[in-house]
């Protein structure tokens, strides 16, 4: 059985970020296992620009961002297994993987999970109608167009105004296709505002708020879709149906962390994020198994993935070196319009001087204040503007604030102006 200090599952931005950091912390035997034939993960198909402003202070494309991390990983002499898939991991950190050379059994002192996420499909939102060819998740279409060099259709409707949906709408227009409309399923767009501007507005692609597809028609290939307006409960308003003739439907209806391996290992999963519960060190419910990036919660900015991954890598290194935290875990409990907070648990002694809390809100708020309380005492408050469900909040908090904290850390949102 092959032995490693740290094994990282996934060679996308999260996995590479964690691996490089672990190596920098002096860990010698680090292995990244990647299922694709190259490193970089989904970044390799995100050929648009807009990555890296926080980390590199310049605007990179997905492949450029990936290339920088791949080059760093090479410099650090990190072991990499490509075209290799992990079949199972166990509580005691034994990994079963396989590739074309055979079945591999690997033992690790620490594991970092960085498997990323997958797209929700037509079935997860149960669109009725026929089941012809021509219905793609936006990411699958992105792979066909940007990696394989094939077009998926000529006349396209995009359902869901997620980032990939809007980016693919622009991409299809650039490649000579036509995008009839991007449909937002509610009054709030899930993607970044700048993508509405640079992907849709700049290319005259209509964005229809409060619309949904009620039927897909076409025996073999998509022939048309029926689109209807929806009310504030997202229910279809009868009589508003309109038929769009098209040959393709792209779905950008959400992402779900891929935690099949985490479940096999028995890691506790948060139903809200669909990712593992993690503490301030990005450690899951199993000591020595860490997680970072989209496998924990779906990010919209890769730089935040990188920051989170460096934290996971550094803490995996600490774990391997035998550093332990003695303080008790405090749960971060959210309310008042905040849907989740990562980390879910904080141990005071293991906190860095400044800890980033990642949160999302369930509605749009022009002005709101994040208030952090503990046992009836307000620890700190942060004024925020333009909060929207599509944009993750990153809030840095000082360790010193939590010196006397015990029990639950309550995080809530006060909506409106300051008190």
């Amino acid at each position: 059985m092959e032995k490693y200090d740290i094994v990282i599952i996934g060679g996308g931005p999260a996995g590479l970020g964690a691996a490089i950091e672990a190596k920098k912390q002096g860990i010698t035997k680090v292995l990244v296992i990647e299922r694709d034939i190259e490193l970089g993960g989904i970044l390799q198909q995100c050929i648009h620009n807009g990555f890296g402003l926080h980390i590199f202070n310049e605007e990179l494309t997905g492949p450029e961002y990936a290339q920088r991390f791949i080059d760093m990983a090479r410099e650090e002499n990190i072991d990499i297994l490509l075209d290799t898939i992990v079949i199972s991991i166990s509580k005691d950190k034994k990994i079963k993987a396989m590739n074309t050379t055979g079945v591999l059994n690997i033992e690790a002192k620490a594991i970092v999970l960085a498997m990323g996420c997958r797209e929700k499909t037509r079935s997860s939102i149960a669109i009725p109608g026929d089941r012809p060819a021509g219905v793609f998740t936006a990411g699958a279409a992105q792979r066909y167009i940007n990696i394989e060099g094939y077009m998926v259709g000529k006349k396209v409707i995009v359902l869901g105004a997620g980032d990939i949906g809007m980016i693919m709408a622009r991409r299809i227009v650039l490649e000579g296709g036509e995008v009839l409309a991007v449909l937002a399923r509610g009054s709030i767009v899930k993607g970044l505002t700048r993508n509405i501007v640079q992907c849709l507005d700049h290319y005259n692609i209509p964005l229809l708020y409060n619309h949904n597809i009620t039927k897909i028609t076409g025996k073999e290939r998509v022939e048309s879709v029926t689109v209807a307006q929806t009310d504030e409960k997202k229910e279809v308003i009868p009589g508003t149906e309109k038929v769009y003739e098209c040959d393709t439907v792209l779905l950008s209806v959400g992402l779900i962390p891929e935690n099949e391996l985490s479940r096999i290992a028995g890691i506790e999963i948060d139903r809200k994020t669909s990712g593992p519960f993690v503490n301030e060190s990005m450690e899951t419910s199993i000591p020595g198994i860490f997680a970072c990036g989209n496998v924990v919660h779906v990010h919209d900015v890769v730089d935040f993935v990188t920051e989170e991954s460096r934290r996971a890598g550094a803490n995996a290194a600490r774990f391997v070196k035998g550093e332990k935290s003695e303080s008790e875990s405090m749960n971060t409990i959210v309310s008042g319009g905040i849907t989740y907070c990562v980390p879910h648990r904080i141990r005071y002694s293991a906190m860095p001087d400044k800890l980033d809390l990642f949160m999302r809100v369930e509605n749009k708020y022009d002005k709101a204040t994040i208030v952090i309380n503990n046992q009836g005492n307000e620890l700190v408050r942060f004024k925020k503007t333009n909060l929207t469900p599509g944009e993750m909040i990153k809030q840095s908090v000082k360790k010193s604030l939590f010196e006397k904290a015990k029990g639950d850390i309550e995080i809530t949102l006060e909506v409106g102006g300051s008190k």
Partner: protein
Amino acid sequence: MDKNLVCIVCPIGCRLKVTGTADDLNVSGNICKKGIAYAHDEITNPMRMVCTTVKIKGGIHSVIPVKTDKPIPEKYKLEVVKAVNSIELTSPVKMGDIIISNLFETGVNIVAERDM
């Protein structure tokens, strides 16, 4: 002038408020100074980054991503893709290699986004 813009320079997407005249713009709502430059360009001469792919022989994939190395005037955004579609590269290509230089006499180059 009294215009609302969304800055597209980074994912934060600052909501900019632009007042004044083209020569003397007053920009607010920006977190960093890139927002001011963006607003200025957007009002006077909108510029766009364009990213697409080019055929490649002998690589691990059949196309390689390329981009404009800086924003190009808005009117060329679809022309860029047409211009590169006829090109076929041969592996190896390094990230940053210039595929087309000074496209449409704009001073903008088309460069490879990755090694392949």
